[in-house]
C-alpha cells in the first residue's frame, strides 16, 4: 500500500513541475504561435534569482517572490526588442529564441563557473500521511501549481483582460478592429509566460541542483506536452503536461529506466501524429 502511495505522490509532484513549466510555454505558443526555445533558460533564470538572493544572505522566500517579477521584466524587454519581429514566422522564431536561450545559458554558465550549486528547501523535512513520508517542499509545489492553474484559469475566464486575450486568440484582426491593442496583449502574454517560467524555476531549484542546464532537460518534454494537448487552448497544455509528466515519472517503474526516457518521447510523438490537433480542439482558451 505505502509503495503505491509513494509512487502516486512522486508522479503527482513531477506532474506539478511539468504543468508549472508548460503553462507559460503553452500560453505563449497559443497566443503568438511561437515555440519559445528560450523557455528552459527562463526557468534557469528563475532558479538563478533564488540563488542570488541566497548568496546575498536574503531569504529564499524573497527570491521565490522576486523571480516571477524579474522574469516578467526580462520577458517584456525581450519581447520589445526581439520577439515581436518573429510573430509572422514561427520557424524563424524558433531559431531566434534558440539564440536567446544560448546566450542566457552561456552567460549563467560563466557566472556559475560551471559548478553545481545546491539550494536548500525553504521548508525542509517530511510529514507522514498514510504511513508514508511525504516531502514538505514537494507538497508546497503541488499546492502552488494548483493555485497557479486555478488562478490563470479564473483570470482568463472571468476578467475583462482575459476576455480580450481570448478574443485576440480567436480572431486577432477582429480584436484589433474592436479597439483591443493586440501588440500590448502579446507583450503582456510573453511577460506572463516568462514570469510563470521564472516561478517554476524558483520552486524546483531545491529539488534539482542549480546548473546551467537545469531548464534544457525539461524543454523537449514541455514542447511535446504543448503539442500533445493542443495549441490554442488553456486546458490542452495542462493536460498534455499531466500526460507527459505522468509517463516520465511512472514509466521507469514499469520498464527499465534506460528505455523509459526515450519511450515517453516516442509515445508522445505517435499520439501527436495520430491526433495533430491535440487533446482539445483549437480556439477555446
Amino acid at each position, binding site marked *: 500500500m505505502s509503495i503505491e502511495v509513494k509512487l502516486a505522490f512522486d508522479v503527482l509532484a513531477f506532474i506539478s513541475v511539468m504543468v508549472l513549466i508548460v503553462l507559460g510555454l503553452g500560453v505563449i505558443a497559443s497566443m503568438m504561435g511561437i*515555440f519559445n526555445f528560450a523557455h528552459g533558460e527562463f526557468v534557469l533564470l528563475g532558479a538563478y534569482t533564488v540563488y542570488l538572493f541566497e548568496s546575498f544572505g536574503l531569504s529564499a522566500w524573497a527570491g521565490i517572490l522576486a523571480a516571477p517579477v524579474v522574469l516578467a521584466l526580462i520577458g517584456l524587454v525581450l519581447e520589445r526588442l*526581439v520577439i515581436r*519581429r518573429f510573430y509572422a514566422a*514561427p*520557424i*524563424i522564431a*524558433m*531559431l*531566434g529564441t*534558440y*539564440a*536567446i*536561450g*544560448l*546566450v542566457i545559458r*552561456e*552567460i549563467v*554558465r*560563466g557566472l556559475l563557473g560551471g559548478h553545481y550549486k545546491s539550494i536548500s528547501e525553504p521548508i525542509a523535512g517530511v510529514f507522514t500521511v498514510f504511513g508514508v513520508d511525504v516531502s514538505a517542499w514537494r507538497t508546497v509545489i503541488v499546492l502552488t501549481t494548483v493555485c497557479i492553474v486555478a488562478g490563470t484559469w479564473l483570470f482568463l475566464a472571468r476578467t475583462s483582460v482575459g476576455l480580450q486575450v481570448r478574443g485576440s486568440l480567436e480572431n486577432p484582426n477582429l480584436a484589433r478592429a474592436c479597439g483591443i491593442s493586440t501588440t500590448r496583449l502579446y507583450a503582456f502574454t510573453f511577460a506572463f509566460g516568462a514570469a510563470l517560467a521564472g516561478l517554476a524555476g524558483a520552486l524546483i531549484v531545491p529539488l534539482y541542483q542549480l546548473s546551467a542546464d537545469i531548464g534544457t532537460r525539461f524543454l*523537449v518534454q514541455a*514542447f*511535446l506536452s504543448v*503539442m500533445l494537448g493542443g495549441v490554442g487552448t488553456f486546458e490542452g497544455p495542462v493536460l498534455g503536461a499531466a500526460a507527459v509528466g505522468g509517463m516520465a515519472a511512472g514509466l521507469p517503474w514499469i520498464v527499465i*529506466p*534506460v*528505455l523509459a*526516457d*526515450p519511450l515517453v*518521447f*516516442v509515445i*508522445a*510523438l505517435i499520439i*501527436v*501524429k495520430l491526433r*495533430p490537433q491535440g487533446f482539445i480542439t483549437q480556439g477555446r482558451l
Partner: protein
Amino acid sequence: MLSEAGTAVTAQQAGRARRPARRLLPWVEGGTLLVALVAPFALSERTDLVTLATNVMILSLLAISFDLCWGLSGIMSFGQALFFGVAGYVIALVGRDLEFSQLWATLPLAMLVGLLLAGLFAAFLLLGRKAPTTIFVALGTLTGSYAAERLVSGWQYVGAGNGLSAVKLLQLGGYEFVEGAAFYFLALIVLVLIYLGSRFIKRSQLGLVLAGMRQNEERLAFFGYRVQLFKALVFSLAGMVAGLGGALYSYHQGFIGPGNMGPGLSTTAVIYCLFGGSGTLIGPVLGTVAVEVLTYVLADIDAIKRIWPVILGLVLLAVVMFQPKGFLGLLVSDRERIGSYGRRRSGGS
C-alpha cells in the same frame, strides 16, 4: 526569406533576353576548392591544423545535409545530427565487433544507414493523410535527436555515456587512414562529390520544384505535385549525406559519443548553415569553416574562450534578425543565390 525564392525565379525568367549577369558564386566555389587543395601543403608543418581542416571538411557534410533540408526544401530539421551520430555508431560497432573497416563497404553502409533512418523519419513525420505543420516536423526531429542521445547514453552495449573510443581505423586494402594529409584528401574528395551531387539536385528540375515549394507549398500541391513526397525524398538524401559525414567523423576522431547525435550538434549545423547563407550550398561550407576556425583560434585566448558561446549566440541572433540570407547574401545577388534551373535554352541567352 521564403518569399524571395519566387521573385528571383521570375527575375531570372525576365532576364533571359538580357545578357546574363556576372556570376560570383562559381568563383566563390572555385576559390574555396583551390584553398582546400593547397591547404594541406601550406599547413604541412602543423599537423594539428591539418586535423582541424579535416574536421571542418567532415562537419561541412553535416552542414550541407542541413542545407538540403532547410535551404532547398524548407524542412526545419533540428535533428540532423541524429543521422550523423547513428551512422558513426554503426561504423564504430562494425569495426569493434566484426573487425571490419574497408572503405569500399563501410562508407556505403553508413550512407545506407543514414538514408534508411532518415527515410523512416520522413515517412513518420512528413507522409500521411494530413500534411504536417512545420512546427511538428521541427519538434519531431528535435525530439528524435534528443531521445536517441538519451537512449545511447544509458546503453551499456554502445558504451553508454562514454561513447565508443578507439574506433578501428579506416582501411583501403592494406592501407590505413590515420589523421593527416591522406585522410584530409579522402574527406575532400567525398565532400566535393557530395557537393557536386547536391549542386546538381539544386539546379535540376527537382530543385525548381523545391524552390516552388519553399515559396508556396499550397500552389505546388494544386499543380498536382505530391509535395510531401518531394520533401521526404530530399530529407532522406540529406540523411544519407549526414550518415556519410558521421562515418568519416567516427573514423577520423577515433571516437563517437552520445553528444554527436544530440540536439547540441544538430543546432550547431543550423548555425553553420545560417551564418554562411542557407540555400547556397557553398554558404554552409564557408560557415562551417568560419565557425570552426574561429572556435579553434579563440580557444587559445582565455578571456574570449569563456564568452565565445555567448558571442556565437549573439551573432546567430543578429543573423536571424537582420541578415537571414547569411554572410554570402551580402556578396551575391538574390537571383544568383536562388540559382537557375534545368538546361539553358539555346536561344535564351
